[in-house]
């Protein structure tokens, strides 16, 4: 049951991810990206990591993708972009070469990977539950967790500074 579900969601994820790349319309790309996040959340649930699944939906599908869509709606997704892309043969060749190289790198990296096999006898299936996650974050990984929080704060302040209206600047 779990295995067939995994293969179903895995193929769905790959299909959606491919559709993100090959969609002509950027809005379709964003919608397929949202679907990809959903299928990834399904994988998290299969791994019994419900908190991660929910947070993945809230943060990526619920907030960041809304902003993506927000920006794309302002850009006129007209045919000009597509035309220039069709004519440029050099760009296509460069894209193919770069993609092929990336594929080679991924294959080379995956070749030597050894998958960890957790011992079913000692493995704690509740490790992804929100209580355990919280405990680990606030004890074992306290310092990295707080550093990430500070990093977020800094980037937030930076974003506000960039977005702030300068004195005398007219935006409307």
């Amino acid at each position: 049951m779990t295995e067939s579900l995994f293969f179903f969601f895995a193929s769905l994820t790959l299909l959606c991810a491919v559709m993100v790349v090959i969609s002509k319309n950027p809005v379709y790309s964003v919608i397929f990206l949202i679907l990809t996040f959903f299928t990834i959340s399904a994988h998290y649930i299969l791994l019994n990591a419900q908190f991660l699944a929910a947070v993945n939906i809230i943060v990526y599908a619920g907030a960041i993708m809304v902003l993506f869509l927000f920006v794309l709606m302002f850009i006129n997704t007209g045919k000009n972009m597509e035309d220039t892309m069709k004519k440029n043969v050099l760009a296509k060749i460069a894209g193919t070469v770069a993609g092929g190289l990336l594929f080679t790198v991924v294959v080379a990296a995956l070749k030597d990977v050894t998958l960890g096999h957790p011992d079913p006898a000692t493995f704690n299936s509740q490790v992804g539950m929100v209580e355990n996650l919280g405990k680990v974050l606030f004890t074992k990984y306290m310092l990295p967790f707080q550093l990430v929080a500070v990093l977020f704060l800094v980037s937030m302040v930076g974003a506000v500074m960039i977005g702030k209206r300068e004195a005398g600047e007219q935006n409307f």
Partner: protein
Amino acid sequence: MDSVVLIYKGIYILAIFGISLLIATYSTYFERKIAAFIQDRVGPNRAGPMGLLQPLADAGKLFFKEEFIPAKANKTLFILGPGIAMLVAAMSSAVIPFGDTLILGETSFDLIAIDVNIGILYIFGVVSLGVYGLMIGGWASNNKFSLLGAIRAASQNISYELAMGLSLIAVLMLSGSLSLKVIAEQQAGFNWNIWYQPLGFLIFLICAFAETNRTPFDLPESEAELIGGYHTEYSSMKLGMYLFAEYINIFVVSAVMATLYFGAYNFPFMENLRNAFDDPVLGNNVVTILGVVVMFAKIFAFIFFFMWVRWTLPRFRYDQLMKLGWNILIPLAILNILLTGGGILLYEYFTKG
């Protein structure tokens, strides 16, 4: 999970789905009746006794209207928009505990569709997806006014989601659990969260109005500026779906508020009532059924409040809306977290130390 529980869950999910649709249908009727009462009118009174069949007549009218799709619109997304809005709205009531457990014979039945330990995050995630229906529909209409409505909806939802999440954190600090069932159980009797979280509730309430696009936050569809906002180009049942999704959202948000802050299915002296029966099973079942009634009474009270506000308060200006969200509600919510944390520490200091 044995097959009895599985069948029961299936029936229960269908029942909850049906009930949320029914309540949403009749919300339209009560909205018009309440509006009429507030404005000293009669309201719908032609279809059936007291106009009770009015929602059916409205739905019938919407079904028979012309299905119009603008010529330059993106057809797929134009049809997808209302579908997403409706789907997302109907998904969110799954984790709400409408009652305690019913004991029939040997088995006990939980009156909750799916008891996940991340219940509140599930609702939060689903609610945050609701904006896609509006955005996609507004963009696909290929109309500047629809696009403006969609953009407004998106920025409003994102802004108020932050304050909503922050006000939720204070509740979670008190309960120590993300499961709505556990949060409901902790508020047994009259020990409701509203006594500990008045400020948090106020923030949550305001954000709930903004998230459901209700007046005074209905700027995405403000007719004076944007014709109809994101649903300008929609007609027939597709328009009906958008309006219907809004009422389902109101129902769900009311249920969430009742669960988080007003004790869900708990009511005062429920333990006394439970102990008054000699048979513990009978006592439990009576209290549970009364609890369901109480839960729905609370939900209806909130739905009434939503309508009352709609016909009382005027709409915000757009910059006022953004200022309220970012400059007032978010700092207040952070202050509320600090106060709650301080309160918990003080309580532990005096009770344990």
